[in-house]
């Protein structure tokens, strides 16, 4: 590759100030919030429009240079960057394009941060369904590509479920709008129409199929009341039974289970709606919890205090160091077994400080293990990497479905799924959309 020539060609597309191959800038793009080893790009570009993204991908496709899209670089599991290619950062594309109170949708460029979007909506009396814990730095494009869980998991499921339409740039540079916006005479107001659900291809694809440049999400009137209360107990089985029943009856916006220890489980419920609805749901939740005498009511103060500064507080979790993370979904029935299995692996590897958490979904739960360490502690880091490998493999054996895959899950996905029609289909689509294999090669095993 003639690097100088490529740099000039990229500069012709995005402008010289928005492309770089300066070593010191590249260094700052070798890692994100994740704990994977550094990966050096050859260039970083910061396009400002879908058209510029398209031109960058056309060039990369022609020259067969790998391209890794990047939002806020704030994903806890990270791993979504390929070696030696172009990092395409979307943060300049940060506008709200339309708040449509007629269809109840908001259309944004994919590089806006969630907090900026949510603040703008809140001022107008609206909210989105799902926000990641890293909302301060995270972007919808990256979250949808993950496929986006967060606060709101039970009532609104995932960010993917909130997508009405996407605008995507394919690896060849072609631009496609999904859903109703596939009709050039229409905007994005309905997802499942015209033909197959193209948006679904990009949700969870982690950039392997293209770059999301715009997203239309559902939005909801800001609820009259948001109320949280906390419970604590010692029996994981009881707690999971409670989560299942609350989720099945759709009584909460979300349940957060930030602490699961052998002798303690702590969870918060977040209920939203009008006064009567919140009161009614609370009565039902309390009745469900009341069936389990070992679970104690801890009141609203703690979780409401957290909620007041929720976007900031999520970052405080990392005062104990950064965390190697394993996240995956499981049905309710398997949560207890998975908790014990992961704990056994972390204990066996002598991990000094870890946390287990759950964030229930309508049909099961996201199960999270975080292994904290000071970023300079190489010995602990090595232990964590070994444990992570075993845990990813074990999660798939248990029937778990990883939430964020990156490159780290690829060998285990290949091992357990490699002979399936699902895997062959993913590969076939990859080949059709990305014949030169330039889009985030290796991520999700593609």
């Amino acid at each position, binding site marked *: 590759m003639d690097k100088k020539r490529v740099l000039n060609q990229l500069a012709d597309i995005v402008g010289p100030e928005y492309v770089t191959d300066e070593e010191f800038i590249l260094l*700052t793009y070798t890692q994100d919030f994740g704990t994977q080893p550094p990966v050096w790009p050859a260039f970083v570009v*910061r396009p400002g429009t879908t058209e510029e993204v398209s031109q960058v991908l056309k060039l990369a496709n022609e020259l067969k240079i790998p391209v890794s899209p990047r939002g806020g670089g704030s994903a806890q599991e990270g791993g979504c960057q390929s070696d030696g290619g172009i990092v395409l950062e979307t943060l300049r594309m940060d506008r709200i394009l339309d708040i449509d109170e007629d269809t109840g949708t908001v259309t944004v460029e994919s590089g806006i941060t969630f907090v900026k979007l949510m603040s703008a909506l809140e001022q107008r009396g609206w909210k989105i369904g799902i926000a990641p814990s890293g909302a301060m730095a995270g972007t919808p494009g990256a979250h949808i590509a993950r496929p986006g869980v967060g606060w709101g998991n039970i009532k609104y499921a995932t960010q993917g479920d909130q997508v009405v339409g996407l605008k995507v740039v394919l690896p060849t540079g072609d631009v496609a709008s999904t859903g109703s916006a596939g009709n050039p005479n229409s905007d994005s107001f309905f997802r499942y129409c015209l033909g197959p659900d193209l948006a679904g291809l990009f949700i969870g694809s982690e950039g392997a199929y293209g770059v999301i440049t715009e997203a239309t999400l559902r939005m909801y009137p800001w609820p009259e009341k948001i109320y949280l209360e906390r419970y604590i107990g010692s029996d994981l089985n009881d707690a999971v039974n409670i989560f299942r029943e609350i989720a099945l009856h759709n009584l909460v916006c979300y349940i957060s289970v930030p602490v699961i220890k052998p002798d303690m489980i702590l969870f918060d419920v977040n209920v939203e709606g009008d006064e009567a609805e919140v009161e009614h749901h609370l009565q039902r939740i309390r009745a469900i919890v009341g069936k389990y005498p070992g679970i104690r009511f801890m009141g609203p103060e703690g979780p409401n205090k957290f909620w007041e500064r929720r976007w900031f507080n999520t970052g405080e979790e990392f005062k104990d160091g950064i965390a190697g993370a394993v996240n995956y979904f499981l049905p309710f029935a398997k949560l207890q077994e998975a908790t014990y299995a992961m704990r056994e692996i972390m204990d066996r590897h002598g991990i000094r400080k870890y946390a287990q958490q759950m964030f229930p979904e309508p049909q099961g739960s996201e199960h999270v293990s975080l292994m904290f360490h000071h970023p300079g502690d190489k010995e602990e880091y090595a232990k964590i990497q070994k444990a992570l490998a075993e845990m990813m493999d074990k999660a798939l054996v248990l029937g778990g479905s990883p939430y964020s895959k990156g490159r780290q899950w690829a060998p285990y996905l290949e091992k357990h799924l490699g002979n399936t029609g699902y895997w062959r289909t993913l590969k076939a689509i990859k080949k059709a959309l990305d014949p030169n294999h330039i889009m985030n090669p290796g991520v999700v095993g593609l």
Partner: protein
Amino acid sequence: MLERLKHEIYECSRCGFCRVWEWEGVENVCPTYPYTPGWESQYARGRVRLARATMENEIEVTDAMLQHAFQCTLCANCQAHCPVGVPLSEIFHAWRVDLAAEGRVLPIHKQVAESVLTHHNLYGPRGGRKGSETATPRKASVLYFPGCTTIRKARKVAKATGELLGKLGLDFVVMEEDACCGYPLYETGLVGEAKQAAAWAIKRIQEYNPDVILTTCPSCYRVFKYIYPQELGVEHGLQVAHVSEFLPPLVAGKMSGLEAKVTWHDPCVLGRHLKMYDPPRDLLQMVPGLQLVEMHSNRENALCCGAGGGVFSAFDEIAGQVSEQRLRQMVETGAQWLATSCPACYVNLQRMIGRAGLNVQVKDLVEIVNEAIR
């Protein structure tokens, strides 16, 4: 210097919360980032990584990297909002000290340092005006030390302070001669030069044999009170006071009404660095008739004016853009006056009023109090 902060440098979790907010009154955590091309290296997360790279000799320090390092105003907004509590501003200052030790400073900052050591101010010789060589120190209870930016660029503040001290009947002297406290050199990492400037300044101050050094500049205040003894090894044993804490007992009950709506701009050094959020506000509220309103970014969340950390001298355009953003926040409040107590903020904000086409005034705290005491 960085080596001492190694543990803290590694504590950065890389969450990225220091980039841009639009939440809880913080438009953007990093004041300059929105006015740069926006690379990772132009806000705190990337800068921490580069500080580490410097400490570990990981990469070559280029001129372009220096530019990114010095586009930081050291406003400490990122530090105040880091969920992990990384002492970011301290790290970025230590980074500059280490870079300077290797001779890696911006040419303009080197030039400024030479000016301070030669002419005892940031701005070169006085031209037609008389300089320090003509001043004759005399004993006074209060030595008002305006500092070089006030003397050269914000003379109205020095004049108002002199008038006010006179009205209050104090035994005082205004140090009219060129004298720089050395803080701008300290900020840009030139600690050796800052020590020389400090030694000169304190020697000169001691010739006045004051009971108290009074400042209207938070940087002079911080450097005299804390940085001289704690970091530069210059012990002076003198009492140091900033006007916001010095004036209240002296002016209580003596001020007449001023009918105006005013908002307080927290200078970063006075606010986030020294936590003096209340004294200036309390003083403004002592003025009868004055209505104090807050900008949505205030106190710990306050947006920097854009001038700090050597940005004013090296990146004039960025400093102006940040200042204009701060003025827009002021306009939202409906205030006629923006009050502050820092000559750099005063000058940087005032110069942008015209360019932004605004019909508002920037006033120093002392100007307001002086106006209220007739």
